[in-house]
């Protein structure tokens, strides 16, 4: 969990602002044809305007809903599966080759197939995003479960608790910091895949669809503006999840020291 402090945040902002100023100056000094590729200030202005543009907001809401649903489905599948595979060694051994085979298959490559399987575009997008987001959560859950101290489990067993209680009261909370990291990684992967599937497969709503429409209208300012907003959304979600992890898993940080 990278910890962001005031000083490093300030430096990051200065760096970003510096780059934007340089690009703006270069554009104004005629480094490229600003009729084709708009100035930084124009793009930022458009991005701001998009936030109050009803057409864009409908698309944004659609993408974010798809993203949230995809993340929920991912968690609902990958966390229980990871707990099972982490606790039952033979099951993990049996499934491992399959995981290693499926994991490197790019989700994007599955889009044409998934289009044929679903008539509903939202379902198609969710499927594509879940396929990509599943792995970080699954793998992190398995490793998290493995990392739970055997003595912690034995302690509860010695008090007469059954395997179900041990899983729920020791293994799940013990693995939770790893699972949370997996979910944070999955959140970034999922937003990429949602927008990608909108770009490739089209549809009626979605930020990807909006970008495609702006492209056909040769509106580079709107395309880049919408793209920036997707990026900002990703940063925001990541920051929220990091803050949540730092708060919930203080015990994990305290135990692992400054290493995490």
């Amino acid at each position, binding site marked *: 969990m990278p910890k962001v402090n005031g000083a490093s945040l300030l430096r990051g902002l200065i760096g970003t602002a510096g780059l934007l100023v340089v690009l703006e100056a270069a554009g104004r000094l005629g480094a490229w044809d600003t009729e084709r590729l708009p100035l930084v200030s124009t793009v930022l202005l458009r991005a701001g305007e998009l936030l109050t543009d009803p057409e864009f907001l409908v698309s944004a809401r659609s993408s974010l809903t798809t993203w949230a649903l995809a993340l929920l489905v991912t968690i609902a599948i990958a966390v229980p599966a990871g707990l099972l595979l982490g606790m039952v060694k033979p099951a993990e051994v049996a499934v491992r080759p399959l995981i290693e085979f499926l994991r490197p298959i790019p989700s994007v490559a599955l889009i044409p197939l998934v289009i044929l399987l679903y008539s509903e575009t939202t379902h198609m997008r969710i499927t594509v995003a879940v396929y990509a987001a599943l792995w970080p959560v699954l793998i992190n859950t398995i490793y998290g479960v493995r990392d739970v101290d055997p003595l912690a489990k034995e302690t509860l067993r*010695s008090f007469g*608790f059954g395997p179900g209680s041990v899983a729920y009261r020791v293994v799940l909370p013990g693995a939770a910091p790893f699972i949370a990291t997996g979910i944070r990684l999955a959140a970034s992967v999922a937003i990429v895949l949602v927008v990608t599937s909108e770009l490739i497969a089209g549809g009626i709503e979605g930020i990807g669809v909006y970008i495609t429409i702006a492209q056909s209208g040769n509106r580079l300012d709107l395309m880049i503006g919408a793209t920036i907003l997707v990026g900002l959304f990703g940063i925001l979600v990541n920051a929220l999840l990091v803050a949540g992890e730092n708060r919930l898993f203080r015990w*994990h940080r*305290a135990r692992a020291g400054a290493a995490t």
Partner: protein
Amino acid sequence: MLELVDLSHTYGSYRAIDRVNLKVAQGEVVCIVGPSGCGKSTLLRSIAGLIKPTGGTVLLDGKPVDGSPENLAVVFQDYSRSLYPWMSALANVGLPLRRRGLDRKRRDAAAMAALEQVGLAGAAAKFPWEMSGGMQQRVSIARALAYQPKLLLMDEPFGSVDAQTREELEDLTLRVCAHHGMTILLITHDVDESVYVGDRVVVLSKAPGTVVGDLTVQLPGPRDQIHTRELDAFVRLRAEVGRLVRGMTPHRNGVETR
């Protein structure tokens, strides 16, 4: 209340314990001492139902143990691994009480009472990683006390704390367990500790561990860290146990050997 009959356990071809026979009466404090690698922990884990011994039986109140028995609690040496870092001291102590079917309010009340007994009433809201080693082991002891087991197993419970804390915890354990009338089986590698804490000291041989000595400790109570340890009887017993642990033949000068 506890009886071990020909208890044996092998890991593959390695024999950890070999036909251990032992009877522990209700309310007795029995210390098991032996050289390292004598299968002390294997013995404890068999009794706690954490491993299934490959031979022999464990009888608790006359009934053979299968799985983890009710009315039994274990205090492990490694308090930092045995306490749950995501829970406060109060929640750690209260957790096993779920097995007793108590509601939240009664669990908290019982946990608080146990923490008071070990002198940690003020630290109930603290997390294990905010506490010193001695405090953490007190929490482990409180957790066992709150559960009110008939049999308390302790696996080198004071092996990871400093000398002063160790003495404090020995006295604390004796005091609160006498108060509850608990039967205790304490495993240690420390000869002094076994004589100071025990009503009886059982000596195990090197692996495969088997009982080579069973001595009754007759020291006037209540025991005192300074006083008790300078008594002639204490010094003689300690020497006796020490010889047994090293595998020498025991002298029989004034010490009852069974």
